[in-house]
C-alpha cells in the first residue's frame, strides 16, 4: 500500500518544485503586463512591495493578460500560454508567503525592511486617503506605561503618547475622538506597523538606526528625550557613577538598559556587579529590599518608582544620563506626505508652546498680528494644504490637546505622581532640546 503511493507523492513533490521555480521567473514578467494593462484602472498598484503585495499584482496582471489573449485568437497555443502564465502567477501567490522576502527582494522598501516584508504604501497621500476613507486613525500605543499610555477605570486611554495620537487625529479629521488605540507589546509593534495594522506608532519607541532602516520605519520628531538614570541610597553618599566602584546594581535582564550599564561602566573603568531580574517589578523590589546599592532604568520611570519605595526620602536619583533614548512617533516608510503630517503636528505643538498659544487662549490669536502665528493657525498662507490638511489644522489640534507644555504637565508634570523634571524636554529657549523648524 505504502510502496504504491511513493511514486505519486514523489511526483507531486517534483511538480510543486517545478511550479515554484517557474514562479520566480513569471512574477516580474507578469508585473510588466499589469503595469501596461492596468495603469489607467489602478495606478496605485504599481509600486506595491512585499510578500503578497507583489504576488497579488502579478496574479491580477496574469488575469488581465489572459483575457485579451484568448478572446481574439482562439489559437490553442496562445490560450495555453496565457493559462500557463496565470497558473504560474497563482503559484507565485501561494508560494511567496512561505518565503516572505522572496517575491519582494527587488523592491526598495522591502529590501530595507529586512526580516519581515512590509506592505508599503503605493504613493504619497495614500495613507491619508486610507485613513479618511476609514474614518478613524489607528494609533499603536503601549498597553500600559504610567504617564505615557494607560487605561482609566472608565475604559478611556490617557497619557502623553495618547495625546499625540489625539493630536494627529485632530489634524486629520478636526476631531480628536476619531482615533482607535491598538495596544501593542514591544515584540508586536514593528510587525503591526509593517503590516499596516496601525497608521502610526506612538509607543515610547527609541529612534535608532536599525529601526529606521531594517524595520522599515520612518521617524517623526522626538516627542520625549529619555535616558537611562541611576537611583542610589542617600546614606551611601554617592553623587557620581565614578563613586560606585564595586557596587551591586539591580537591572532588568534582556533590555538595552542592561547593555548600556555595562558599556558606561566599562568606559568609566569602574568595577560593578550586575544583579539581574526578569521583570521591572522584581528588579525594583530587590533594590528596595537592599540587595543592591543601585537601581537603573529609564529616567522617565525612575522618579515615579522612587515614590513607590517605602521611604522615598532615603533614595536619590543621580544627576547623570547614561544613554540616549529619544522617543519618537514612527510611521511606515514610503509615504512622505503622511510622515510630514505626523512631524508637523509635533512641531506645531512645540511651536505653540514657544508662542504661548494654549488650549484656552487659541481663539484669541485669530486677530494676532504676528506673521508666524498667523501662518501656523492658517489665518494666512496655505501651509496646511501643503500637507493635504485644512489650513487651520493646528487650531483643531491645540483645541483638542493644548500645546506641548500642556500635554507634558497634564501627564508627566509636577501635578502628577510621576513629576518628571522637564530637563532635556524643555524648549531650546529654556535650555532644553525642543526646537521646531519655522512654519513658513
Amino acid at each position, binding site marked *: *500500500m505504502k510502496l504504491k*503511493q511513493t511514486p505519486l507523492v514523489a511526483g507531486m513533490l517534483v511538480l510543486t518544485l517545478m511550479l515554484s521555480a517557474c514562479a520566480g521567473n513569471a512574477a516580474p514578467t507578469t508585473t510588466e503586463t499589469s503595469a501596461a494593462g492596468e495603469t489607467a484602472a489602478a495606478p496605485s498598484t504599481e509600486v*506595491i512591495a*512585499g*510578500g*503578497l*503585495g507583489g504576488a*497579488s499584482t502579478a496574479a491580477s496582471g496574469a488575469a488581465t493578460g489572459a483575457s485579451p489573449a484568448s478572446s481574439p485568437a482562439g489559437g490553442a497555443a496562445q490560450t495555453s500560454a496565457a493559462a500557463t502564465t496565470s497558473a504560474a502567477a497563482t503559484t507565485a501567490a501561494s508560494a511567496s*508567503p512561505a518565503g*516572505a522576502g522572496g517575491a519582494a527582494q527587488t523592491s526598495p522598501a522591502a529590501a530595507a525592511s529586512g526580516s*519581515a*516584508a512590509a*506592505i508599503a504604501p503605493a504613493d504619497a497621500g495614500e495613507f491619508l486617503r486610507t485613513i479618511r476613507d476609514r474614518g478613524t486613525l489607528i494609533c499603536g500605543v503601549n*498597553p*500600559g*506605561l*504610567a*504617564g505615557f499610555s*494607560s*487605561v*482609566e*477605570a*472608565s*475604559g*478611556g486611554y490617557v497619557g502623553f503618547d495618547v495625546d499625540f495620537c489625539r493630536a494627529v487625529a485632530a489634524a486629520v479629521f478636526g476631531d480628536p475622538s476619531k482615533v*482607535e488605540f*491598538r*495596544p*501593542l*507589546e514591544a*515584540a*508586536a509593534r514593528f*510587525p*503591526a506597523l509593517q*503590516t*499596516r*495594522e496601525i497608521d502610526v506608532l506612538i509607543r515610547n519607541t527609541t529612534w535608532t538606526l536599525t529601526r529606521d532602516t531594517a524595520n522599515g520605519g520612518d521617524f517623526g520628531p522626538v516627542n520625549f528625550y529619555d535616558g537611562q538614570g541611576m537611583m542610589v541610597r542617600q546614606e551611601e553618599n554617592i553623587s557620581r557613577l565614578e563613586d560606585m566602584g564595586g557596587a551591586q546594581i539591580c537591572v532588568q535582564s534582556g533590555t538595552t538598559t542592561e547593555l548600556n550599564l555595562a558599556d558606561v561602566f566599562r568606559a568609566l573603568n569602574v568595577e560593578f556587579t550586575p544583579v539581574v531580574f526578569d521583570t521591572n*517589578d522584581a528588579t525594583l*523590589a530587590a533594590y*528596595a529590599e537592599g540587595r543592591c546599592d543601585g537601581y537603573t532604568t529609564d529616567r522617565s520611570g525612575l522618579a*515615579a*518608582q522612587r*515614590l*513607590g*519605595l*517605602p521611604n522615598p526620602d532615603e533614595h536619590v536619583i543621580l544627576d547623570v544620563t547614561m544613554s540616549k533614548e529619544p522617543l519618537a512617533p514612527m510611521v511606515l516608510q514610503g509615504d512622505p506626505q503622511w510622515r510630514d503630517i505626523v512631524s508637523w503636528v509635533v512641531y506645531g505643538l512645540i511651536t505653540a508652546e514657544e508662542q504661548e498659544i494654549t488650549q484656552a487662549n487659541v481663539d484669541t490669536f485669530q486677530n494676532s498680528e504676528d506673521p508666524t502665528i498667523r501662518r501656523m493657525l492658517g489665518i494666512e498662507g496655505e501651509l496646511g494644504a501643503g500637507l493635504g490638511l485644512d489650513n487651520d489644522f493646528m487650531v483643531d489640534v491645540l483645541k483638542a490637546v493644548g500645546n506641548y507644555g500642556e500635554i507634558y504637565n497634564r*501627564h508627566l508634570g509636577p501635578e*502628577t*505622581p*510621576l513629576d518628571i523634571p522637564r530637563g532635556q524636554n524643555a524648549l531650546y529657549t529654556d535650555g532644553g532640546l525642543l526646537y521646531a523648524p519655522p512654519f513658513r
Partner: protein
Amino acid sequence: MSSTELPVSRLKPPGSSVNALDWLRRNLFNGWLNSLITVLLGALVIWLLYQVLGWAFTTAVWTPIPTNLQILMTGRYPSEQVWRVQICLALLLLLFGLSAGVWGGILRSIASGLAAGALLLAIMPFTLQTRLVLAGLVLLVGAGFIVGSRSRHHMRRLTIALWFASPAIMVVLLRGFVGVPGLPYVDTGLWGGLLLTILLAVVGIIASFPLGVLLALGRRSKLPVVKGFCVGYIELIRGVPLITVLFMAMIMLPLFLPANVRVDNLIRVLVAITLFSAAYLAENVRGGLQSIPNGQVEAARALGLNVFQTTLLIVLPQALRAVIPALVGQFISLFKDTSLVAIVGLAELLGIADIVIEQPAWLTVPHGVHREVLLFVGLVYWIFCFSFAQISRHLETRLGVGTR
C-alpha cells in the same frame, strides 16, 4: 447485643470511632520524630498564614479592583452600553434555569451553582446598582427553574431553540449595528476583560469540538488522502506553540491578504485558537476511539448498521465517554491559554490586569499593586477552572466513567 447474634460474614468492620485527641496522637504524634515534624510544620503553616493574612488585611491595597471592576469585567466596552453585556448574562442564566427545570440532573447543579455564585457576589461590597443586577440574575435563574419544571413538555422545545439562537442573539447584541441609535456599533477591539476571556474560551471549546472529532475520525480513515491530511494537520499544529499560531494570525496573515482586506482581529484570534485546540482534541478523541474493542464495530455491522450509524451510535458515544477527563483537562488549559492573546493586542482578563497595575494612580503605593491585582485575577481563573472540574466529575459519575 443484637450484633453478636449475626453471622460473622454479615458483621461490619469495627467503626473507627476515635475522638479527635486519639486521632491526633495516632497520626501526628506517634513517636518523638513525628511529633517534632508536626510541631515544626505546624509552626511554619501558622507563620505563613499569619504573614499572608497580615498582608491581605493591613498592607495590601485592594482599591484598584473595585475601582476598575468594570474594565476587568468588560474591558473598554463603553460604560453606557454595558447593559448589553448584562442582558447577555441574564439570557444565559435564564437558559440555565430553564434547562435545570426541564431536564434536572447535572443542569440543576450547574444552575444552582451559578445562582449561589451570583448571590455570593450580591452580598459583596459593590455599588448598589451592581448588587441589584446580581440579585436580579439570581431571581432569573429561579424563575427559569420554576417555569421549566412546571411545564416541562412545552418548554423543552423552546429551551432548545433558545440555546441554539442564543449565540447569534448575543453577538448581535454585543456588536450592534452602525447607525442604529438604540444599539450603536461597538468595535470588537473594545471587548475585553472577563467578557473576552469567556468568549474566547467558549467559542474555542464549542467550535473545536466537532472539528477535533472529525480530525480524529479522519486520522483513522482508510482513505489515504483524508488520513494524510489529518495526520499532517494534527502534527503540524501540535508541533508549534499557541503563541506562534496567534502571531501567524495577527501579524503574518495581513501580509498574505490584499492591503484593503482586513479581517476582524477577534475573528482571527478565534480561528487560531479553534484550529489549535482542534488538533489536541483530535488526539484525545483518538485515544477514546482506540479504546473501543473491534467487537463493538463488528456487532454493529452484524445488526445491519451502516458506517455512519456505527460511528455515531456505537463508537463515538463510548469513545467520548471514555475521554471525558482528558477533554475537560484540555478545556481547562484552553481557558487559561486565552491569556496569551494579550501579547497580540487583545486585552482579556490578564491583559486588563496588566493595564490596571500600570495606572498612574498606583505609582505612589509602596511596591505597587501587582500582587493584589494578580491574586484577584488568579482567583477568577481558579473559580472557573474549579467549576469546570466539578461539573466534569458530576458528569463522570452520572455516566459511570471508570466504573463500567
